[in-house]
């Protein structure tokens, strides 16, 4: 049965969307470029590039410091961007969104500011085998520093979290569950509702790695009720080094600062210092001001499209791509049911090594990722050293998926044994 059956056509005008992204018009070696690596970083619409440029050309100054017009304008843009981000993820108060350079920094902030403050020997940190290294290594470091134990939820053969053993993994010893919302290596959308409820039932807090989920799926932290949500701006049409961490007010308030330095303090004495209120106690030094302003423009763009529409279109495109890839003989590493997955499609094709495949595809103008995708536990679980990964976003088209599959055929011609 085709997975594309009974799917309503998308409400988005993708041809028009593509015109908003200047880079999509470029060629590689004389061929129109097909960019299928948005899970690594997304392309940027003109509006985002212009917002950053406009900031530097007309409003650039440091924020919360200068007693002059320019600094007030910069501060206003910076704080309005925070309100935009907060509303995008459903956070009721802008100050519950801390600016960071992205998901990696956000999770490290939680592992330091919350983990090292509250975890003790005998406590347990629960993560999963599906995580990106940025949701593993900070917890390994945190466990080493605190004496807490790190435990893992395993995976099923078809790329889902194996929750059959959740009862014995998630206990009153578990103090935090940190889990991805959508796997960058498998595409899997995790059952966050179930996980948050189960964690709260044993008194654990929940940190969601939203690096892939937030750009591609509606997210509302007020409904989700997780304590933390980490996300990256550059994967959701925004500039690199933009992003944030949502945290529940009372949790953020109890936490220690992450980085110390200028701007995050109230008073500094020889033997102590006091911090500002949230979010500023977590924002030391000069922040990524222009980038967060650019990210707000990206969020405006996504909101104008409507995240429900973005998700619906990507579901349709992912189903199309999965159908074609499977028909062409690709082995999909990850779920095949598009209702529980996003457009990060990991695969092996005819036993051609993913690096070879990516090189040949590049010659056809098709950009995919090959490697372990910063998810070595996933690679080990499925017995592969690496995978090829084509990842889709709202500007990709069925024609581009066709180009991918045509390029695969060329790789097969070349590598056929």
């Amino acid at each position, binding site marked *: 049965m085709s997975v594309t059956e009974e799917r309503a056509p998308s409400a988005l005008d993708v041809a028009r969307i593509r015109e908003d992204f200047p880079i999509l018009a470029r060629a590689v070696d004389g061929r129109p470029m097909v960019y299928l690596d948005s899970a690594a970083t997304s392309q940027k619409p003109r509006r985002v590039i212009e917002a950053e440029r406009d900031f530097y050309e007309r409003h650039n100054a440091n924020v919360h410091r200068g007693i002059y017009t320019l600094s007030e304008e910069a501060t206003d843009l910076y704080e309005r961007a925070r309100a935009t981000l907060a509303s995008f993820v459903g956070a009721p108060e802008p100050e519950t969104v801390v600016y960071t350079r992205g998901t990696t920094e956000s999770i490290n902030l939680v592992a330091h500011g919350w983990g090292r403050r509250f975890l003790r020997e005998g406590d347990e940190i629960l993560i999963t085998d599906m995580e990106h290294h940025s949701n593993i290594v900070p917890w390994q470091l945190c466990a080493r520093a605190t004496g807490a134990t790190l435990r893992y939820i395993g995976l099923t053969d078809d790329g889902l979290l194996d929750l059959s053993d959740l009862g014995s993994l998630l206990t009153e010893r578990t103090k935090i569950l940190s889990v991805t919302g959508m796997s960058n290596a498998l595409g899997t959308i995790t059952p966050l509702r179930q996980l948050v409820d189960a964690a709260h039932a044993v008194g654990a807090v929940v940190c969601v790695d939203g690096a892939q989920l937030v750009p591609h799926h509606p997210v509302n932290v007020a409904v989700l009720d997780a304590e933390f949500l980490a996300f990256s701006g550059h994967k959701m049409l925004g500039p690199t080094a933009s992003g944030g961490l949502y945290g529940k007010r009372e949790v953020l308030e109890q936490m220690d600062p992450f980085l110390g330095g200028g701007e995050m303090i109230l008073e500094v004495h020889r033997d102590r210092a006091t911090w500002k209120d949230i979010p500023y106690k977590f924002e030391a030094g000069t922040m990524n001001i222009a980038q967060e302003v650019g990210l707000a423009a990206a969020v405006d763009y996504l909101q104008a499209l409507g995240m429900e529409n973005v998700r619906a279109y990507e579901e349709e495109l992912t189903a199309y791509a999965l159908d074609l890839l499977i028909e062409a003989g690709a082995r999909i590493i990850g779920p095949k049911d598009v209702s529980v997955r996003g457009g990060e499609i990991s695969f092996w094709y005819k036993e051609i*090594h*993913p*690096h*070879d495949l990516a*090189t040949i595809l590049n010659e056809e103008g098709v950009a995919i990722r*090959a*490697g*372990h995708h910063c998810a*070595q536990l996933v*690679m080990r679980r499925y017995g*592969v*050293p*690496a995978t090829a990964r084509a990842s889709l976003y709202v500007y990709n088209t069925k024609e581009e998926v066709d180009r991918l599959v045509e390029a695969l055929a060329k790789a097969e011609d*070349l*590598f056929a*044994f």
Partner: protein
Amino acid sequence: MALDDIYKEVILDHYKSPRNKREMPEAELTCSKNNPLCGDEISVFVHQEDGKIAAVVITGSGCSISQSSASMMTEAVEGRALDEANAMAAEFRGMMAGEIEPDENEFGDLIALKGVVKYPIRIKCAVLAWDVLQEALEGADGEATGAAARG
């Protein structure tokens, strides 16, 4: 572009029909390495006689660049003095860094890997076999190393 295609053919030929690909448990010099970033694995077994590489064989798995490079390497260094092989390794690295234009007669099929220079991320795939060889040869100065000792 035609040149690229010839290179491609040579690389694929070594990938699909690797030369000297087998184990040699009795070899006195061996080393294994992998590239954790992409999972390429190569083991080298060297039998030396009178300061020369009398026989060299490889095993391993990975992408076409890593495996063809290893195959080509065995053909290039067999029969050479150990210091000659080391010099060749340095020259190969120089070629992959885009700094040296090696002698085609000397380098033979290895020249085909020159095209990899334009894919910086894959240069380490091409160089892996030579890293493994050189580490194996280091054992020649002191006591011989066995497959069990290295690896």
